[in-house]
């Protein structure tokens, strides 16, 4: 008898608890922000000591990709809303659109690099500020790939009959991460625009 009571307690305690896990994602956001902070501060110190930035007009593709990424965030927001209304099929649709927009974003970034490269601003460059454009956008794109994995996990749970609690948790961490990389890109883009 004692045993079963203890097991009940344990069951209660080990029930799925989303809060600490969500917090983990937030902390990841913090540390990732700091990594990019490290690069942008490199850029600031470099530009200040050399008296020059990248000195380029950034390719239009980066502007389009920014718009696409913003749209994807809107779609993800709508997906969350659909899930809150327990409308799984609508959630799934918006998630697929978000995913597609994410892929388009990646494509546009490649376009941006190509046009940078063809105008002579290659990664291997004696102006480290130009190389930095590639580093920043490249590592941001790695985050996008991570974000796409998050979205896929949400898509997966919208097909499977997972509990509402767990589906909401997956959708929430996807949202935290995706909106973060959206804002991160806007920061990087504006940073590069202002510090040319």
């Amino acid at each position: 008898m004692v045993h079963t009571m203890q097991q009940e307690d344990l069951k209660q305690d080990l029930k799925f608890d989303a809060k600490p896990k969500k917090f983990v994602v937030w902390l990841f956001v913090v540390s990732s922000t700091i990594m990019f902070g490290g690069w942008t501060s490199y850029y600031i110190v470099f530009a200040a000591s050399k008296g020059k930035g990248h000195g380029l007009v950034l390719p239009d593709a980066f502007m389009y990709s920014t718009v696409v990424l913003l749209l994807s965030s809107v779609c993800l927001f709508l997906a969350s809303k659909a899930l809150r209304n327990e409308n799984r099929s609508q959630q799934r649709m918006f998630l697929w659109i978000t995913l597609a927009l994410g892929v388009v974003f990646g494509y546009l970034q490649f376009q941006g690099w190509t046009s940078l490269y063809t105008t002579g601003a290659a990664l291997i460059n004696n102006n480290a500020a130009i190389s930095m454009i590639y580093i920043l956008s490249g590592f941001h794109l790695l985050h996008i790939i991570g974000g796409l994995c998050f979205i896929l996990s949400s898509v997966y749970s919208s097909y499977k009959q997972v509990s509402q609690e767990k589906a909401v948790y997956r959708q929430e961490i996807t949202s935290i991460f995706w909106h973060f990389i959206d804002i991160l890109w806007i920061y990087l883009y504006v940073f590069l625009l202002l510090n040319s």
Partner: protein
Amino acid sequence: MSTISLQDTHHHDNHDDHSHGHHHETFLTKYIFSQDHKMIAKQFLITGIIMAVIAMVLSILFRLQLAWPDQSFPLLETFLGKWAEGGRIRPDFYLALVTIHGTIMVFFVLTAGLSGTFSNLLIPLQIGARDMASPFLNMLSYWFFFTACVIMMGSFFVQTGPASAGWTIYPPLSSIPKAIPGSGLGMTLWLVSMVLFVASSLMGGINYVSTVLNMRTKGMDLWKMPLTIWAFFLTAILGILSFPVLVAGVVLLVFDRSAGTSFYLSDIVIGTEILPNEGGSPILWQHLFWFLGHPEVYIVIMPALGISSEVISVNSRKPIFGYHAMIYSLIGITILSFIVWGHHMFVTGMNPLLGGVFMITTLIIAVPSAVKTFNYLATLWRGNIRFTPAMLFAIGLVSFFISGGLTGIFLGNASLDINLHDTYFVVAHFHLVMGSAAIFGMLAGVYHWFPKMFGKMMSAKLGYLHFWLTFICAYLVFFPLHFLGLDGVPRRYYAFTEFEFMQKWLTVNVFVTWAAIIAALAQVAFLWNFFYSIFRGKKAPQNPWEANTLEWTTPVEHLHGNWPGEIPTVHRWPYDYSKPGAEHDFIPQTVPFSETMSSNLPHDFEGNTEAEEIQKAWDVKNKPVQDAE
């Protein structure tokens, strides 16, 4: 006990999304890919110990070279082959030895081995949680660390040898493969290993912070947490905020080395060849590196300080002196550690005004450090001290923290540092204040929590032998180095015979090397004690040190989920030792005030007037009136 544990592991897994496969615990899920924080802690500890032994052997190798630069040791050639042709260590291998020794000790032993072991073990146990916020991430953290270790060791087996640009891997030495053999493949492996290591640290740190903030048991508010938890918590925050910057720097270095960018390179000529790289600045690496590097030394020392707070208080049978001051000084150190990195760079041509700023912040950080030191001493003062091996090591930490900390004040002064920079004075300073102190804190933790980890006791006699030999030899090794430094002897030099002004220090080097060898032999006592006791040690009682914290309320026999029943509720702070009027000289955190009416003090109730009234009524009834005069 064991039946309970078995049944529990069977049951809970249906509800825990992440612990698949525990239904029938196999060797693989129990010992290898374990998600239980206690097992992961042991994995970190044993890996850390193995890495520490390797780093120690490396240090003995280069100490041999320093003591007897002209002598041949044929045995070395047998083991090291071409790295010690003719029984003499080659100059580039000497550099590799100091580089890898530093890297292993700072990162693999004193960061992962220390935080990884004790944060994993103690955070859930001392705050009253079943496990970490994300056990899966926790497991991943260990395996990233393990892979990093393997890659770092693997660099000993490549043609060009391991990285040899020093543990700070300053470019351009580290960024041009042609600069020295070690900057070839060995450096690449170093960088890969460090990226994995940082990933591991981040996964661990993020988990620790989330667990401490979200998963404390009922009654465990932040101001009732043991100082160990405060230290681990703030250490994890430091890691989360500083390690990503190292990754940022390392990525740029990787691109400089492999892609041909010029982040850190400019105007380099090798022989007659002019490198194409232009426009970069190696100083920027130093900024990025030390922005991590300085918080890193606090990542190393703060867990050790936390551990010794606990050990000293338990074994002095006294509440820790200045509990709040201890926490505020930890917080102070955490914040200040981010604005002192420039003191590593006084000689880089830094603007003297900026140097002055860094000097002031550096000297200010001595204040919280001194507060902690005085609090340790005040805790010991007139305590009912029990000299357990853990206690000796904790006191040893305080000793090293003082003697090494004092020289920090010298080095923090820009004008003095210009003289002392890159000399043996620096080596002596950080080996005492960060190396020896942190290792002693870690060993104190091992002796103290060994019963919790393995359910066995370590031999105290061997512990004393280990302590005294190590303590004395550590001073004999590092103290003389101050004088070499004051004389201007630079660190990382291969042979003292090559320079006339350094020759007089050769005899000192012989002395230091002998002390180092004895210290290394003393560790055999520890290793024997550790591994023998795991299997053959005396069975440990549940609360061998009569301590107050929650981990000693768990059964000796480990079980996934830590407590067989409900998680205990916390009613008081963890330092009620020798409380006047109490029945025993310790009152565990789980004992409510209603059970200790004879020893409650007015401030225990934190302004709860109802409880104060009850206490007053009890006092009037039960306590003889004696304060009348």
